[in-house]
């Protein structure tokens, strides 16, 4: 089981969502994050310049079985890229275990509805 975290542009979210659906990802979570990256834009607030190199991004968090890892990454790479600086990153890490709260099912089973595939 793997966790895939992707930090993407807000404006690419809808496209990524569709690409993930096509890649067979039915469930994921996301939230808004701010990134400190290379894209700087100066701001002035009441005469004081301040550094807000912070850019709004969306962090998508997907827990999935091994076999979905490759298609998921490809889907994101395709859908989220614009080619301009600031497109974001994808990180993959290991998950030791999982549970479905509704049923208490453990492990891989927590990630798919049995007989639902």
């Amino acid at each position: 089981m793997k966790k895939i975290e992707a930090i993407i542009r807000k404006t690419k979210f809808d496209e990524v969502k569709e690409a993930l659906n096509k890649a067979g990802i039915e469930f994921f979570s996301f939230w808004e994050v701010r990134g400190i990256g290379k894209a700087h834009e100066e701001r002035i607030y009441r005469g004081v310049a301040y550094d807000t190199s912070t850019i709004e991004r969306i962090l998508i968090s997907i827990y999935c079985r091994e076999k979905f890892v490759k298609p998921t990454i490809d889907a994101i790479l395709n859908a989220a890229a614009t080619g301009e600086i600031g497109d974001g990153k994808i990180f993959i890490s290991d998950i030791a275990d999982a549970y479905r709260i509704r049923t208490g099912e453990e492990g891989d089973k927590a990630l798919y509805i049995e007989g639902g595939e």
Partner: protein
Amino acid sequence: MTDTLIIADKIGTFETALAEYAFSLNTVWVLVAAVLVFFMQAGFALVEAGFTRSKNTTNILFKNLMDFTLGTITFWALGFGIMFGSSNGFIGTIDLFSTGSYRTDMPDMAFLIFQTVFAATAATIVSGAMAERTKFNAYLIFSAVISMIIYPISGHWAWGGGWLSQLAVPFHDFAGSSVVHLVGGSAALVGAAVLGPRIGKYGKNGEVKAIPGHSITLATFGVFVLWLGWFGFNPGSQLAATGVANAKAISLIFVTTNIAAAGGSLATMLYIWLKYKKPTLSMTLNGALAGLVAITAGCDAVSPGGAFIIGLMAGVLVVISVEFFDRVVKIDDPVGAISVHGVNGAFGTLMVGFFSTSQGLFYGQGAALLKTQAIGVAAIAGWAIAASLVLFLGLKYFNGLRVEKRIEEEGLDIYEHGESAYNS
């Protein structure tokens, strides 16, 4: 006989005093109305901010503030004279900084401030339709020009003694369904069309996408503020409150204005509910505004029942119109300004031809007024469209009208103003 002299003297004093009171009460009325209409600027700012995304909130608020700022200055500098200066039928006169003499029944300054708040309204309507993608400097130029020239010229035709008011059956646009709202709505149409839709509004295959506004709360409160302001806009346009006839007139206008708004709000809610199975607030808000815009031309001339029917129709019309521009014409108007102000401004002006209790077709008075109304609508819309087309194309060519892709995506607030509206 000294008695008679004293009495004659007293009578003279009384006559002066009575005239002064009429003058004073009218002034108070017009100034109070001006305050209410001024507040509509805030209402527009709230509605437009609420219906757009939070990354562009500073920008849209700023535009609304500058609409009134520039409107105040340019209308005072030039617009007022162009609109109300003595007429050659098509245009008034240049009265730099409005020092001329216009009224005897109230101070000129009272008339000026009342007309200023009206003028600024026409500009403000446009910012909503062009929201989320227009360059700030281009917008400011447009805003100055509409208050200074475009609005005053067609306004002159109807209210300044121009040709529309000289027709055999004079054009009847009591408080500005056409003079204000149709002008604003027409410019909004041209502006939104020349700009093109926001990124993400239409999919690759042309399918329409929803871009929800960031705060229905702001939009709803803004509509309450506008509804409130309309109690200055319409009854204030009577420009007098003294005497039984005036008192009755402004009271009737309060009632017709209010009932039309309620009619619009009710009709939209029911129509949307039937059509989409759910009553939607954002559209119902447009419905209330549509009722208000539509009654503005005839608020003094129709019965409460007539106002209700006009409001109901406006409430349905605005939905159809929003969908038409969104889906068929594919002009992206984030707040529905074209439909609310343009389409319903024209519709409301025409309806006077049917529902006027003294001149309307439905009251057996023939189609003479209706014909005049149609002429007025065509002329005013034609002028506003032509003038703003020239202006927007000029801006596009010489200055650029639309921000860069990246700025539009990341939000105008940071790139155009260096300031996001919301922080923690």
